[in-house]
């Protein structure tokens, strides 16, 4: 039985007019999803995990993250913002959390929750069910770029991915349940996730039965930061008087999205790895020689976890530091227990907390047929011997090995190798490469 591969939604886009084909994004892409075609970066939709490395690498601002129209929130009478705690970490400590919550109301939301509230809900229901996967060690499902990376590049490890929903989804389910118990028409409830990264947009917008209808839209964190900061700078006096109602999150859950935040709240022996290339190196090892004794792995695509999300305007280290040291306000303390009485927990709600499975989407195969793939693999090896091994990227592929694979898959031509073309000019090449310049391959 072969599961049908459902296409992923992607949130990153390249502007053809701005892109210079400089190869930086292509070389930084951890899944080798980018090729430069006729001077413009093209992202292969089946290989992209929306980690945002390309956006960070681009010096010309040619890569952008898609954005929903903010005014869409006004299509609903109940407008809920669910935002990660790293949003708070963007603001200096002089700005109290109450100002931020009040500003969210001022700009148009009717309710707002921190996504980490979902971690408290889970703990309140049962401390034991925060992780569940067929195989140990369990890999966190918190970072959608990591989940996709495993699906695409490490399909044998999908059974390790935590099937419990991440906190932001649990919070959304809870909010829906809350309104439904109040007798409010679901059509009138709009839930918007405030995202620090492209991967969460891609995840939310991928048509999948288990995620559909959780969120009505996504607001990019930098956009919201500007709206809120503007409101704060213009209305300080009013904000000082404001006393917005909001649901507090325990300190432990609040730090969930920063490096070692989740792993430190999971029982047993845990390990946290941040930054996508580190995660890949770790997964390579894990896949070859499964690691004994570990119970839980927190893997994050961004350095410093979600504090390093590409849509955060602030410095990632400062953001983490602010979250950890932000003066504890009356509602948030280290000892605070998760709300014991989760009011809106019904059987229906509890049943939705876990998803069924993550499907593998392996992408490394050169051909569906093993015999054909073997032939192609031998051909790739032969071509690799002939290519210079410099990985300059001029051909439009990220490395000589990638070009060899592209040639075999008829996506590129051997003549694209600029170095081999240059080598025809022997005296120039001797000047550049000295004795390492080979006249023949």
């Amino acid at each position: 039985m072969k599961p049908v591969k459902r296409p992923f939604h992607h949130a990153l886009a390249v502007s053809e007019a701005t892109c210079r084909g400089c190869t930086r994004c292509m070389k930084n892409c951890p899944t080798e999803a980018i090729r430069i075609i006729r001077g413009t970066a093209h992202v292969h939709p089946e290989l992209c995990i929306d980690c945002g490395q390309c956006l960070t690498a681009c010096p010309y601002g040619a890569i952008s993250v898609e954005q929903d129209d903010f005014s869409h929130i006004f299509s609903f009478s109940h407008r809920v913002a669910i935002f990660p705690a790293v949003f708070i970490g963007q603001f200096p400590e002089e700005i109290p959390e109450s100002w931020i919550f009040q500003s969210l109301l001022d700009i148009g939301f009717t309710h707002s929750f921190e996504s980490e509230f979902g971690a408290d809900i889970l703990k309140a229901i049962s401390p034991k069910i925060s992780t569940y996967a067929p195989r140990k060690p369990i890999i966190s499902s918190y970072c959608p770029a990591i989940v996709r990376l495993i699906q695409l590049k490490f399909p044998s490890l999908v059974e390790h991915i935590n099937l419990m929903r991440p906190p932001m989804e649990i919070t959304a389910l809870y909010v829906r349940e809350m309104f439904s118990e109040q007798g409010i028409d679901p059509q009138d409830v709009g839930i918007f996730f405030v995202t620090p990264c492209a991967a969460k947009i891609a995840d939310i917008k991928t048509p999948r039965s288990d995620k559909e209808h959780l969120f009505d839209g996504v607001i990019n964190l930098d956009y919201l930061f500007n709206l809120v900061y503007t409101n704060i700078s213009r209305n300080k006096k009013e904000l000082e008087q404001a006393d917005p109602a909001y649901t507090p999150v325990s300190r432990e859950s609040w730090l969930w999205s920063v490096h070692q935040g989740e792993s430190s709240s999971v029982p047993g022996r845990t390990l946290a790895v941040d930054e996508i290339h580190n995660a890949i190196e770790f997964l390579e090892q894990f896949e070859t020689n499964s690691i004994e004794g570990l119970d839980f792995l927190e893997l994050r695509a961004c350095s410093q976890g979600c504090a390093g999300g590409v849509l955060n305007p602030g410095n990632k280290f400062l953001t983490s530091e602010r979250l950890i040291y932000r003066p504890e306000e009356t509602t948030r303390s280290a000892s605070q227990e998760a709300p014991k009485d989760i009011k809106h927990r019904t059987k229906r709600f509890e049943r939705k907390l876990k998803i069924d499975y993550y499907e593998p989407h392996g992408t490394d195969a050169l051909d569906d047929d093993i015999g054909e793939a073997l032939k192609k693999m031998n051909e790739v090896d032969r071509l690799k011997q002939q290519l210079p091994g410099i990985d300059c990227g001029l051909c439009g592929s990220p490395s000589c090995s990638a070009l060899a694979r592209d040639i075999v898959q008829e996506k590129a031509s051997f003549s694209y190798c600029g170095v081999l073309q240059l080598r025809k000019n022997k005296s120039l090449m001797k000047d550049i490469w000295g004795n390492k310049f080979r006249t023949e391959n």
Partner: protein
Amino acid sequence: MELTAGDFSHAGQASSQIKQMLKQLNIAPQVIKRVVIALYEAEVNVIAHSYGGKVTCRINPEGIEIHVSDQGPGIEDLDLAMTDGFSTASEEIREMGFGAGMGLSNMKNNVDSLDISTGKDSPTKIYMHVAFTSQGETDHETG
């Protein structure tokens, strides 16, 4: 691929390379996993117990053949060595996290056929075969 005695820092390199190849061949992840577990065990055995050796593999559309050979000193009592938990590994090797005594049985449990030729003071040669089509699918085709 050459394996150097005592070179634990490179243990897993051969299995990792073969894993990369099998991924390109559209082999089912569960099958790749079995190959990698068996080969990793064989690799560590050569590094831990022998004077050095090498791994070669042959792949065809039906399956993968792996040959692991070393330069001795051989396994004195093969039946005993195949027993779970039996280990001749030194304290030093065990402290490094190897030598739990599951190596040979782990290999046997993950391959479709295993053939070991060895003896006291002679080289050890291991042949392993893993078929790419699972038993269930083969039955379906023939039945």
